């Protein structure tokens, strides 16, 4: 008896599909407000002191939050190698833009207040804005494209090849539906950042964040509903046409699939998944309510629910598809044929079961140590050590 066979292959595949969701949601819930704060910086904080208050609400913790993103990359590599290989090479220039924007953040946070010059500081403020706004937008655009299918095909050697010229591939990402989903994610993370600032910042910054957040919260809700309608009536879904083998080898070409019907078939097959959009809308509504009525921690918690519901909606609607191909549906990656091997999934599960709880514990401890609002005194009193 080999140890890893204790857990069936298909169970591990579903588990890692769930964990992929957990990582994306963990990233959006934590680093999401860091990006939101970056994107809000020019609007909610005008003076240098205000900006430093806003920046320092996330200063000590944003770096740990970003690891959700890095770990997301690593976990996709380990658990879904074909997804890692196909998606990042396919979204090549978009990924480059995301990385370039994200690279600005560590430097922006750390270096901004290390010189007194106003030009120096305002340049880094713009860098932090880009570092927050650009990824927030592009992640949503990417999801919109995944829902429509991406123009790649696999050769018999399982090499992935994209159609179209290099700039054409990039411009093709910016289609109307994808821009709409981009607005969803941008507005959602903006709202999340605003909810964070009302919770964690003091005075004027919190007040302005509340105002911006109530508007962006409504935009999120409107764009989400619109995208839902569009998905229902304007976007063709994908389906597997051969018999589904859940524990076969990870070779997408062993199945057949076509680009027909509606994604919403999923809701007829598994009616319980309607819970995802319901939670998303509930979260969005209550976030706006919380921001308007002066709730602080509550708006942040509701905003987390909105993020959870939104990402879960996408995943559950597409299941078992992970990355459909618009030009060769057979090449589409699904939960059943794009994972790593049985043994690797098992090893990764053991590692996750051991380390993820430890990570969550010490992260919680760090947040507890740093509990409380960042005030003007915190900045002026520790001008040398804070950002």
């Amino acid at each position, binding site marked *: 008896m080999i140890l890893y066979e204790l857990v069936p292959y298909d169970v591990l595949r579903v588990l890692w599909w769930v964990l992929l969701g957990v990582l994306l949601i963990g990233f959006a819930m934590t680093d999401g407000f860091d990006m939101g704060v970056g994107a809000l910086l020019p609007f909610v904080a005008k003076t240098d002191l205000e900006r430093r208050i806003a920046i320092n609400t996330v200063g000590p913790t944003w*770096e740990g939050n970003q690891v959700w993103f890095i770990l997301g990359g690593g976990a996709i590599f380990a658990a879904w190698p074909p997804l890692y290989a196909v998606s990042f090479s396919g979204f090549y220039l978009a990924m480059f833009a995301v990385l370039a924007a994200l690279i600005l953040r560590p*430097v922006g946070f750390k270096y901004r207040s290390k010189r007194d010059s106003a030009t120096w500081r305002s340049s880094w403020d713009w860098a932090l804005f880009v570092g927050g706004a650009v990824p927030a937008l592009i992640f949503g655009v990417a999801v919109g494209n995944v829902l429509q299918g991406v123009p790649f095909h696999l050769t018999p*050697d399982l090499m992935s090849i994209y159609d179209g010229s290099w700039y054409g591939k990039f411009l093709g990402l910016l289609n109307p539906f994808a821009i709409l989903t981009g607005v969803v994610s941008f507005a959602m993370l903006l709202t999340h950042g605003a909810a964070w600032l009302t919770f964690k910042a003091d005075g004027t910054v919190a007040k302005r964040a509340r105002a911006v957040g109530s508007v962006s919260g409504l935009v999120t809700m409107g764009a989400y509903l619109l995208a839902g309608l569009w998905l229902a009536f304007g976007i063709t879904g994908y389906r597997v046409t051969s018999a589904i083998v859940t524990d076969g080898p990870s070779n997408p070409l062993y199945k057949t699939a076509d680009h027909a019907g509606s994604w919403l078939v999923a809701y007829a097959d598994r009616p319980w998944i309607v819970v995802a959009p319901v939670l998303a809308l509930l979260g969005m509504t209550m976030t706006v309510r919380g921001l308007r009525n002066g709730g602080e921690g509550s708006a942040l918690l509701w905003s987390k629910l909105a993020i959870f519901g939104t990402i879960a909606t996408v995943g559950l609607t597409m299941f078992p598809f992970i990355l459909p191909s618009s030009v060769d549906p057979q090449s589409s990656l699904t939960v059943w044929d794009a994972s790593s091997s049985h043994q690797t999934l098992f090893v990764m599960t053991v590692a996750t079961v051991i380390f993820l709880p430890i990570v969550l514990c010490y992260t919680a401890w760090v947040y507890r140590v740093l509990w409380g609002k960042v005030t003007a005194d915190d900045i002026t009193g520790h001008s040398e050590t804070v950002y």
Partner: protein
Amino acid sequence: MELNIVELSRLQFAMTAMYHFLFVPLTLGLSILVAIMETVYVMTGRPIWRQMTKFWGTLFGINFVLGVATGLTMEFQFGMNWSYYSHYVGDIFGAPLAIEGLMAFFLEATFVGLFFFGWDKLSRVQHLVVAWLVALGTNLSALWILIANGWMQHPVGAVFNPDTMRMEMTSFYDVMFNTVAQAKFVHTVSAGYVTASVFVLGVSAWYLLKHRHVELARRSITVAAAFGLASALSVVVLGDESGYTASHAQKMKLAAIEGMWNTEKAPAAFTAFGFPDMKDRETHYAVHVPFVMGLIGTRSLDIDIPGINQLVKESADRIRSGIKAYDALMTIRQDKAATPPAVRQTFEQHSADLGYAFLLKRYLDDPRQASDAQIEKAAWDTVPAVAPLFWSFRIMVLLGFSFIAVMIYFFWRSNFRRQTYPRWALRAAVAIIPAPWIAAELGWFVAEFGRQPWTVDGILPTALSASHLSVGDLALTLVGFVTFYSVLFVIEMGLMLKYIRKGPVQDVAATDEWMNRHHSRLAGTHVMPTASLTPAE
């Protein structure tokens, strides 16, 4: 695949990886030095050690963020630029990367913020624990990434699966305890410790030359010299361990580094100097040191180390064997479950050489049609460019030994000559600050360039590993990354210099208070006029 795509992808990887490794070694070593300084502070309570912790901690922070920034690219560019590689070996290679994130990145990134922001929010001991956790996290990340890299050098614990057209893991234990990976890990972190020690030594020497911050500088030199001496010894000893493991795992790389064209009678001589010539297949004007190579490579006097010409012959044999595997694979792929057992058996027999058949893909689509001339050509492709390896390696080793000499000298002066340092020695310490970075970059060059033409030794050729991108894609991102990194690098250097010039922030109140208590303990009185005390500096 177009060759210039592969070359551009390689160039981009080399640039981004080498930029990344400008920041990593200092992070690895300085995190530990800072934690050591804070430990002394917590044990003695002397404010000068807290000042040192904060001062070197600030420089650590400025450097750390660029390690993070350039590291982001590393995590994703395998998928972006090396799509087929990611597919082909992701089942093995991805796991250490993910565990690195889970076990190491979270640790260092979560606590690094608290290190800087937590001085007033934590007790002394708590803050010390945070400092050590940051150091632990950075060093653990090196462990996992070197397990991943070690597997590229010496792929163990994996087998090719014809159904999924990729390598799959058979033993995580073998991957984790890969001898090459373990030797590389200790060699690499030691190199990081040397880098940080030389950095601390050099900056402190500069202060002594300027008669500034003398208390801080003297103590820093004492710590750096002791830590640096241990690390410099370990870097060389474990570099030797790398050589020993390479003699089993990567014979071709070793032969290329040595410029050794023909198998010599054991024990082989070490070529200290010479001009390797790829065309004549000979090393001109070679100066040999008898016995040394045999001792390093095999730790024996009677085991042969094969030369390049012999290894090329072996490669040609493996290419022929690989073609048989390739042929069987094509049948398996066509017939799937209905494949005759004899074909499966042929495949099993030759599948270890499948990668060698892929070397032919540079010259023709179907390796089975290869002519003898093409096989010969592909066999010679397994020899990496000898001269750059030969020279890089020698400069690295020379630098490695010079670090030992420097550290012995400063260790001796700090412990047995009452921390007095002649000015020429201080000037030399400032001058050698860049040297460990040069050594580290050369080391990575030898490791990665020496593995060519493979991304995974003997398994997957580099020419096959790249993504199907366009020159436009690559030109844009290559120029983009290099420009972007260069600008950030210049900004970083500017800030480093600014904070070095500025020196430590003196905490006069804490120093006075400590001196007060200290003196009152000695004098048995509680009254001690603060004004009469000189602060620690």
